[in-house]
C-alpha cells in the first residue's frame, strides 16, 4: 500500500528535476495526472475506523484430520469503508487450508463483513486477541490502521491411544488401594504366600492343602496387596533428539505416547506428574484424577521441541518434582550423551521405563531405498541397539517403539504377564 505513494512521489520528483534540468515546461504537465491521482485518493481516504468484531472459533474433525475454523464478523458503526484489509494473526507452523487470514473487502455503513478461514491443527493452544484492520481510499494510498478487539481461544488436545493394563512391578508404591502389585501380602488377586493362621483371619482364606499336610496346624493363603504408584512422565522436547521427515516430526509421536500413558496411569488411579523437558521446562506436580489428565493434556497441547543440550539438568529438576519412590517414564528417542543421566537416576533409586520412539525406522519408512542408505541404516541400528543394551544393563526397562506400529502392541510384548515386566524388544 504505502509503496504506491512512495513510488508516485519518486516519479513526481524525478519529473520536476528533469523539467528543471531540460528547462522544459511540457514535462510539468506529466505531473498533473499523478497529482490528480493522489488528490482523489486522499479525498476518499477514511478518517476513522469504527468497527466491532465478534470471533467464533470451532474445531472440526473429518477424514483429513482436525481443522480449526475461524469466523470473524465485523460490524461497521461509522462511515462506509471502501477499501478494508483485514489481517488476522495465524500460526506460522500451520499451513492455511482454506481461504486466507488476510482479506480485502468493503464495508458499508452499518453493514457487516464476514471473514472466514481454517487451518489444520493436530494439537495446540491457539488464541487471538485482536484483528488488525487497515482502511484506505480505493487506490490504497492513504491508510489508517486499528486493532479491533476480537478475542478467541481454542485448545486442541493431543490424540492418544487407549492402552491396555501394563503389568509393572515397581519397588515402591503409595499406600492406597490400586492395581499395582505392592510386593507384600494383603488383599489382592495374585497369590503371595501361605502363612500360619492368625486369630481374625477369614476362614475362606484357609489353605486346605497345606493344612492336610500339617495336622493340628492351620494355614492361611495370602494374596499380593495391590496399591497405586507415583509416576513421573518425562517427555523429551529437545531439538537435537528430534527427527523431521517429510514435514512430520517424531516429537508428535512422543506427545501421543505421553498422553496415552498419562491416560492409562490416571485411569488406573495412580499419581502422575509430567515434565516436558526442553528449553522451557514445564513441570506439573504429581496428582490424581481427570483434572490432572486435563492439565497434562493442556501442557502437551502447547509443547514444542526446542534446543537444550543435555539431560544433565534433569537430575536437579527430578529432585524437586518427583520423589525417589516414583517410577520415571521417559519418552525420548535417546541421545548418546544421555546414558550418564540414566545411570545417575538409577543410582538414586529410581525405576526407569524408557519408551523410545525409534528415529531410524521413522526415517527409513519413507526414505528412498539404495545400497548406501541401507548400509547407513544398518550401522545406525547397530549403534542404537548397543545404546539400548547399555541401558538394559543399567536396569532401565526399555521399549523400542517403531512409531509406525501401535504403541499398545509394543508395550504388550514387553509387559505381558509372561515376561513379568522389565523386558526389551
Amino acid at each position, binding site marked *: 500500500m*504505502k*509503496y*504506491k*505513494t*512512495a*513510488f508516485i*512521489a519518486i*516519479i*513526481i*520528483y*524525478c*519529473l*520536476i528535476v*528533469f*523539467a*528543471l534540468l*531540460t*528547462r*522544459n*515546461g*511540457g*514535462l510539468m*504537465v*506529466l505531473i*498533473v*495526472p*499523478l*497529482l*490528480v*491521482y*493522489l488528490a*482523489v*485518493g*486522499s479525498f*476518499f*481516504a477514511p478518517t476513522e475506523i469504527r468497527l466491532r468484531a465478534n470471533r467464533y472459533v470451532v474445531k472440526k474433525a473429518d477424514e483429513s484430520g482436525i481443522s480449526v475454523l475461524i469466523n470473524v464478523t465485523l460490524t461497521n458503526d461509522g462511515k*462506509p469503508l*471502501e*477499501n478494508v484489509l483485514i489481517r488476522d494473526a495465524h500460526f506460522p507452523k500451520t499451513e492455511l487450508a482454506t*481461504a*486466507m487470514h488476510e*482479506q*480485502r*473487502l*468493503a*464495508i*458499508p455503513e452499518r453493514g457487516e*463483513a*464476514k*471473514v472466514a478461514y481454517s487451518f489444520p491443527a493436530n494439537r495446540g493452544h491457539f488464541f487471538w486477541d485482536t484483528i488488525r484492520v487497515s482502511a484506505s*481510499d*480505493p*487506490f*490504497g*494510498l*492513504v491508510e489508517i490502521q486499528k486493532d479491533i478487539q476480537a478475542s478467541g481461544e481454542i485448545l486442541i488436545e493431543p490424540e492418544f491411544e487407549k492402552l491396555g493394563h501394563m503389568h509393572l512391578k515397581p519397588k515402591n508404591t503409595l499406600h492406597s488401594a490400586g492395581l499395582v502389585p505392592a510386593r507384600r501380602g494383603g488383599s489382592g488377586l495374585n497369590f503371595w504366600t501361605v502363612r500360619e493362621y492368625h486369630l481374625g483371619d477369614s476362614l475362606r482364606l484357609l489353605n486346605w492343602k497345606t493344612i492336610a499336610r500339617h495336622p493340628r496346624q492351620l494355614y492361611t493363603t495370602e494374596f499380593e496387596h495391590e496399591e497405586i504408584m507415583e509416576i513421573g512422565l518425562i517427555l523429551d522436547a529437545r531439538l537435537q533428539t528430534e527427527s523431521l521427515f517429510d514435514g512430520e516430526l517424531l516429537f508428535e509421536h512422543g506427545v501421543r505416547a505421553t498422553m496415552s500413558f498419562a491416560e492409562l496411569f490416571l485411569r488406573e488411579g495412580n499419581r502422575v506428574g509430567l515434565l516436558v523437558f526442553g528449553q522451557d521446562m514445564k513441570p506439573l506436580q504429581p496428582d490424581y484424577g481427570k483434572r490432572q489428565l486435563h492439565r497434562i493434556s493442556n501442557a502437551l497441547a502447547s509443547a514444542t521441541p526446542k534446543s537444550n543440550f543435555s539431560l544433565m539438568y534433569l537430575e536437579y529438576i527430578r529432585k524437586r518434582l518427583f520423589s525417589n519412590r516414583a517410577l520415571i517414564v521417559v519418552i525420548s528417542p535417546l541421545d548418546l550423551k544421555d546414558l550418564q543421566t540414566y545411570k545417575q537416576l538409577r543410582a538414586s533409586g529410581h525405576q526407569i521405563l524408557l519408551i523410545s520412539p525409534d528415529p531410524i525406522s521413522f526415517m527409513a519408512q519413507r526414505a528412498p531405498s539404495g545400497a548406501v542408505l541401507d548400509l547407513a541404516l544398518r550401522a545406525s541400528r547397530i549403534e542404537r541397539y548397543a545404546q539400548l543394551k547399555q541401558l538394559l544393563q543399567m536396569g532401565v526397562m526399555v521399549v523400542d517403539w517403531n512409531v509406525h506400529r501401535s504403541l499398545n502392541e509394543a508395550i504388550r510384548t514387553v509387559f505381558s504377564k509372561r515376561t513379568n515386566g522389565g523386558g526389551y524388544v
Partner: protein
Amino acid sequence: MFENLRKYRYARIFCLLLSAGFLVAGYLFAGVWQILLIFPAALLLWVICKFQPEVCDPSVLFGGYTFLTAVGIWIRCEPHLIVYGFIMALVSWELHLFNRGLAGNPQYTDNLLLEKSHLRSLSIVIILSFLITTVGLSFHLDLPFGIIFVLVLVVGFAVERVYFYLFRENF
C-alpha cells in the same frame, strides 16, 4: 468472481494497448520511427515475463513508460498524445495492482462496493486528468528560469507538506 476479474483484466489490457498506441503515434508524428522498436521489445519482454514473472513488476514497467514519455516530450513529440498515453498507462498500472490485490480473495463476490468505489475514483482521475492536461497544454507561458525555479520549490514544498500530513505515520 472470475467474471469480474476477467473484466478488470480486459480493461487493463485495453488501457495498456491504448497507452502504447498513443505513445507510438506521438513519436511517429515527430518522425521518430525508432519507436517502432517498442513492439519487438514488448514481445521480448512478454517472453521474459512468461518465464520470469518477477521481472515484470507493473511498477517497473510504468517507470519505464514514464521515462519514454518524458523523453518524448523533451524531444518535442506531439504532447497531447504523449500525455494521454501517460494517463492511460497510469490507469492500467492502477488496474493491474488492484486486480493483483483481489486475486484469490474469496470475499470478492460480495464486494461490489469495493469494485464500484474503485471504478468511480478511477473515472474521476481520468476525466480530471484529461481536462486539466488539455487546458494546461493550450497555455504557453514564457517565464524566466528563476521564477520557474521558485514556483517549483513552492510546489515541491507544498507536495512535501501534503505528504507529511497525509502519511505522517510513514515518515
